C-alpha cells in the first residue's frame, strides 16, 4: 500500500521534473501535462539520513482536468522492482478526520474519496491549476535506488538529483 503510494508520487515527479526543470536528460521524452511550477527540492531529513523528501508544486499545462491517485504510481529500481515510497498532494501536515480504528478504514487506504483528498492521497488538477506535491521514500541501498516511474500509460526515468538539501 505504502509502496504504491510512493510509486504514485514518483510517477508524478519523474514525469514532471525532467520536463520542467530542464536540466536532466534522464527522462524519456514523453509528453506530460504536469510540470513543476518551480524547481522541486530534494531534502534529506536530518534525523533520517537514508530518507528523501522531494517537494514542490506541479501545474497542469494540459487542456483537461487530471486526477492523480497516489496509490496508482509506481517507483521502480533498475531491475524493475518496486521501491516503497509515499506521495501526498498537500501543502502542510494534515490531521485525518478519522481516528485510527473508527469510521472507514482502517487507515488512510480505506478512507472515502473526500478524506483521501483531505490528507493528500488523491488530487484533481484543473488546466492551469497547481497542486503541492511531496514524495518521500527510504533510499534503498546500492542498485535498488529508484530509477524510473511507472505511471500506467508509460515509464519515465527518475531524474538524477545531484544535490540534496539537509533540512533542519
Amino acid at each position, binding site marked *: 500500500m505504502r509502496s504504491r503510494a510512493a510509486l504514485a508520487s514518483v510517477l508524478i515527479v519523474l514525469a514532471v521534473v525532467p520536463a520542467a526543470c530542464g536540466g536532466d536528460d534522464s527522462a524519456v521524452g514523453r509528453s506530460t501535462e504536469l510540470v513543476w511550477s518551480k524547481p522541486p527540492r530534494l*531534502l534529506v*531529513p536530518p534525523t*533520517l539520513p537514508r530518507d528523501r523528501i522531494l517537494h514542490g508544486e506541479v501545474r497542469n499545462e494540459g487542456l483537461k482536468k487530471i486526477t492523480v491517485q497516489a496509490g496508482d504510481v509506481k517507483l521502480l529500481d533498475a531491475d524493475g522492482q518496486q521501491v516503497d515510497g509515499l506521495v501526498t498532494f498537500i501543502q*502542510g*501536515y494534515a490531521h485525518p478526520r478519522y481516528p485510527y480504528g473508527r469510521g472507514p478504514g482502517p487507515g488512510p487506504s480505506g478512507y472515502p474519496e473526500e478524506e483521501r483528498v483531505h490528507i493528500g492521497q488523491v488530487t484533481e488538477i484543473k488546466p492551469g491549476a497547481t497542486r503541492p506535491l*511531496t514524495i518521500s521514500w527510504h533510499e534503498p541501498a546500492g542498485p535498488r535506488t529508484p530509477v524510473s516511474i511507472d505511471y500506467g500509460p508509460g515509464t519515465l526515468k527518475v531524474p538524477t538529483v545531484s544535490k540534496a538539501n539537509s*533540512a533542519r
Partner: protein
Amino acid sequence: MPGLRLVPHLQPHVRGDQTNQSGEGSVVAFLSSKLDFLSPSRRTASILIVAAIAGLAALALPSAAGAHSERATFFPDINQGDFPVYRTEGSSIVVCRPNSRQLIARIRDNAVRRENTKLLKRCIFYNIQRAVDLAGNDTRILVLPGEYRENPSRGPAPAGCEDVYARTAAGSTNLTYEEHQRCPHAQNLIAILGDTNGNRICDSKCNIQIEGMGEKPEDVRIEGERTALNVIRADRADGVYLRNFYIEFSDFNNIYVLETNGFRLDKVVSRYSREYAILSFASDHGIYENCDTSYSGDSGVYPGSGPNGRHGQPDAHGHRYGIIVRNCDSHHNTIGTSGTAGNGTWFEHNRLHDNAAGVTVDSFNAGHPGMPQDNSKWSENLIYDNNNDLYTDERDTYCSSTPWAQRTDPTVVCPTFGVPLGTGLLIAGGNANVVQSNYIFNNWRNGTMQFWVPAALRDEQDPEKTYDTSSNNHYEANCMGVRPAVLDPAAVDFTQCQGTRDPNGTDFWWDEEEGRDCTEDQAGCVDNDTALGNCWVQTGSTRNVGPNGAQPSSNPPPPLLADCPGIDLFRPGNSDKQALLVPCATWSPENPNPPGCDWFTPRQEPN
C-alpha cells in the same frame, strides 16, 4: 414518537441491574425494598416524596423535537450564562449501590462517613441515570460510594430506536440532538439532555450537580466497561456540575459536554478512554479543575471548538476566556490536552507530562466551529517529560491487531492519531495565543513547536485565507529546560526560573511562517492588525529563559526567531521545514513509519 420515548426512563424502575434483576416493578415496591432500613413512617414519607417528584417531573417534560437532520453544533451566547458555582443546598436525590453501606463504613474521615451514613437513608436509586431522569432544574444528585455500571442504560435497542442503535453499531458517532433525546442510551450511559424545545438552550435539567460523596474520587466509580461511546453526556445541559468521582473505559468520551453554556468538572479522575478522558465541544463558561486524566488514546483534556466569540476581548461578564483548565494532572495519554479550534481557553497551574505530546491546539479539520484556532493562553503550567513512546513496532502491531474491547491492559494506550513524539506544546495553525510563565522541560524533540496549517485543510476555499493561520502567537517569561525542585504548580515560583538543567531537544521550533492577520468572519483577508507578529520575548524582565539564565535554544535562531512584538509582515515560511511535516499525515499503525517522517521515532535524551 420521541416524547413518549422518555416516559420509560421516568418510571422509577430498576431494570436490568445486575444486583437487582428482580427489581422490575413499581416505584413503591422498589423503594420499599431499598428503604427497609428506615422506620415505617419515614419510609412511607420518603416514598411519597419521591413519587410526587417523579410525577411532577413527568408532567414537566415536553415532547422532543422530531427533526432528523445531521447534528450541527453552535456556540452558546457568550453574553448569557456563567460559570457554575458549587452548591451544598437545595433539592437533592441520593443514589447508592447495594454495598454502599459497607463502603461508607470504611471511610476514614469521620465527618464524611457520618454524612454518607445519613444520606444512605435517603437513597432511592441504584443508578445515576434514574436520578437524572427524575431531576428537575437545580437538582443535586448525591452519589454514595460504589461502582456504577448503569446497567439499565445498556442492552438492546428499545422499540423505535433500532435504527439509531444500528447506526451506532456500524460506527456512527454522529446523531442528532433529537435522536439522543429519543434514544438517550444508544451512545451514552448517563445522558443529561437539557433542551426540550429544540432551541439549543437548556430549559430542563439545567444546573444539575452530580457529586460523588466519598472521601476521594475513587470511592464513586462510574464504569463504561468499553461498551458505551460516552459514559456521561451533558448536552445543552447548561450549568452542569460534575464533582468528585472516578470514571473510566468509554469507547469515545468518558465525559462529553456539548453545546452547553456553563459547566464545571471538579475533582474528577478519568482514565482509560479509547479516545478522550474529558471532552467539551462548542461550549462556554466551563471550568475543568483538579482533574486527573490519563491513559487516553487521544487526549486527557479536550476543550475543542472552544469559545470563539470573544477573540481575546472580555464578554459582558468580563470573562476574556470562556473555558478554564486549572490544577489538572494529565499524563500518559497520547496528548495531555488538545483542541481542534481550541479557542478562548486558559490553561493554568496544570501538570502535563509523560504523554507523547503535552499540549496541542490546531486548525486541521472542518466541522469544528470557530476555525481557525485562536486566543487561548497557557500560563504557569508544568509541561515536561512528554516522551511517552506510543509508536513502537510492538505497540503498532498490538494496536492494529487487537480490537478495543479485547485490550486487556488499559495502561497500554493505542494512539488514535500521530503526534510529534517528544513535544511539550504544539500550536498547529493557531493565532494570537499566549504562552507565558510556564516551566517547559525534558521534552526531547521540542519544548514548543509552531507551524502553519493551510486553510484548505479545514475546507476553507477562499484563496485569500490560505495563509491565515500561525500569526501573532506570543511567548514570554517561560522557563525552558529547567526542572523545578518540586513538580507541584502550587509550590513553584513562576516568577523565577530556578531548578536543575533538564533540556528540551529544542526549546522553540517554528516553521517561520508569519500568517496573514485575516479577520475570521469576513470574506477575503481583512487585516486590522498592523503591529503584532509571532514573537518570543528575548530581552527584559519577561524574556524567555533557559538554564542558568541563558537564551533558550531555537530553530530558527534569533533574529529569525522574532523578539516581541514580532514582525507583522506575511511570510510563507520555510518550505523545507514544512515539507518535513507532510509525510507524517499518512501515519497509521499499518503505516507506522512514513518515509521522511521522524515524528514517531523517539529522540535521544538531550545532553
